[in-house]
């Protein structure tokens, strides 16, 4: 009986010690994992921005867009930092909202915490503050009602709706068909968010605060 007890204790002791060591190492690895996740996100964004830049030359856009629901970029986008003050007020931990000079939301990215959003802003800053990027082919007529002066939509990805509209011609086509903003507006999440954010976006634009344009 005592012999059996000894064996059980030896097995349980080995198991407990193993578990203890594993938990210790887990704690050690957690910081590195968080840093890896941030790095992966930055790389995704960098690839996406690189894709957008390539599109200027190739007239086609091919970025992953997996976590970007709506993305717009142009020289008039002034307010990505706006998300840092507006989204937390709405109870969202973080995200990025691009606002153009007319106060229209032209891009929304919600899947970040506030810390992650802050970590991503250097890339956004570099991208937005870069040289003007004429994305749509010259001569493209854009009759979309929600398109504010200077705003050029380069890609759209909506949850379960439009996977992505890749390429300037595709974006132009979608804009001409008045499709992108309509779809975006019909998605409940975006409609609510849009409406909640719009006044703040306009106020933000009128203050001309946070402009990153040269």
């Amino acid at each position, binding site marked *: 009986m005592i*012999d059996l007890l*000894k*064996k059980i204790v*030896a*097995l349980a002791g*080995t*198991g407990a010690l*193993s*578990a203890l*060591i*594993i938990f210790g*190492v*887990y704690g*050690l*690895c957690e910081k*590195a*994992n968080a840093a*890896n996740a941030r790095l992966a996100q930055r790389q995704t964004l960098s690839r996406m921005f690189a894709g957008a830049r390539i599109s200027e030359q190739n007239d086609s856009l091919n970025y992953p867009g997996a976590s970007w629901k709506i993305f717009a970029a142009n020289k008039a986008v002034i307010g990505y930092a706006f998300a840092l003050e507006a989204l937390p007020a709405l109870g969202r931990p973080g995200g990025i909202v691009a606002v153009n000079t007319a106060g229209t939301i032209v891009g929304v990215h919600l899947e970040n915490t506030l810390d992650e959003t802050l970590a991503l802003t250097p890339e956004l800053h570099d991208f937005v503050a870069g040289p003007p990027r004429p994305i749509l082919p010259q001569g493209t007529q854009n009759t979309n009602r929600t398109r504010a002066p200077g705003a050029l939509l380069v890609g759209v990805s909506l949850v379960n709706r439009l996977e992505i509209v890749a390429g300037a011609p595709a974006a132009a086509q979608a804009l001409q068909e008045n499709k992108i903003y309509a779809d975006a507006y019909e998605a409940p999440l975006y409609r609510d968010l849009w409406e909640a954010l719009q006044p703040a976006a306009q106020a933000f634009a009128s203050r001309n605060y946070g402009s990153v344009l040269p």
Partner: protein
Amino acid sequence: MIIPEIKRGVVRENPLLALGLGLCPALAVSTSLQKGVGLGCATMLVLVVCNGVLAVLKKTISPQIRIPVAVMVIAATVTVVDMLIKSFMPSLSDSLGIYVPLIAVNCIVLARCESVAFAQPVRKALLDGIVCGLGYLGALMVLSGAREILGSHTLWGLRVYPGASLVPAAALPFGGLMALAIILGLMRRLNPAHGGK
């Protein structure tokens, strides 16, 4: 004492080329030298730690629960190694995939624990872990280096010759088996201890 031991682990009792242990992960990950070195180093680390820990514990462990304790120690060590690789070398972890956790069921580890860690003093068990690990690492380096050069015309990711691959099939599973067979044949031809002439 160390040189003959190294010779034993690397040549005479090489886990992969002489004993035929750890063949499955070796064939699966030996498509590039980087992956081969990664798996070889991970296996060596597990071997050394498990041999050391079990050699220390052997006097306190009843023979009847020897195997369960060994399995627990191996599993815990592999888990720790896997977590460390995932956190600090994520790209290597991605490329090795399931084959790092599978070190836990690698016959080399259990075989060395059974035959050496439970029978030899701590120093000898540690040395055995190192030389066997070196043997496995060396065999993986030869196999994966040859496959990468022939199948992908690169070595450690760097292009070694221009043009198309010499033997594209070397990068396929069939190529792995053929490369291993050729290396085994050469070993036997050159080394009488492996049945050569």
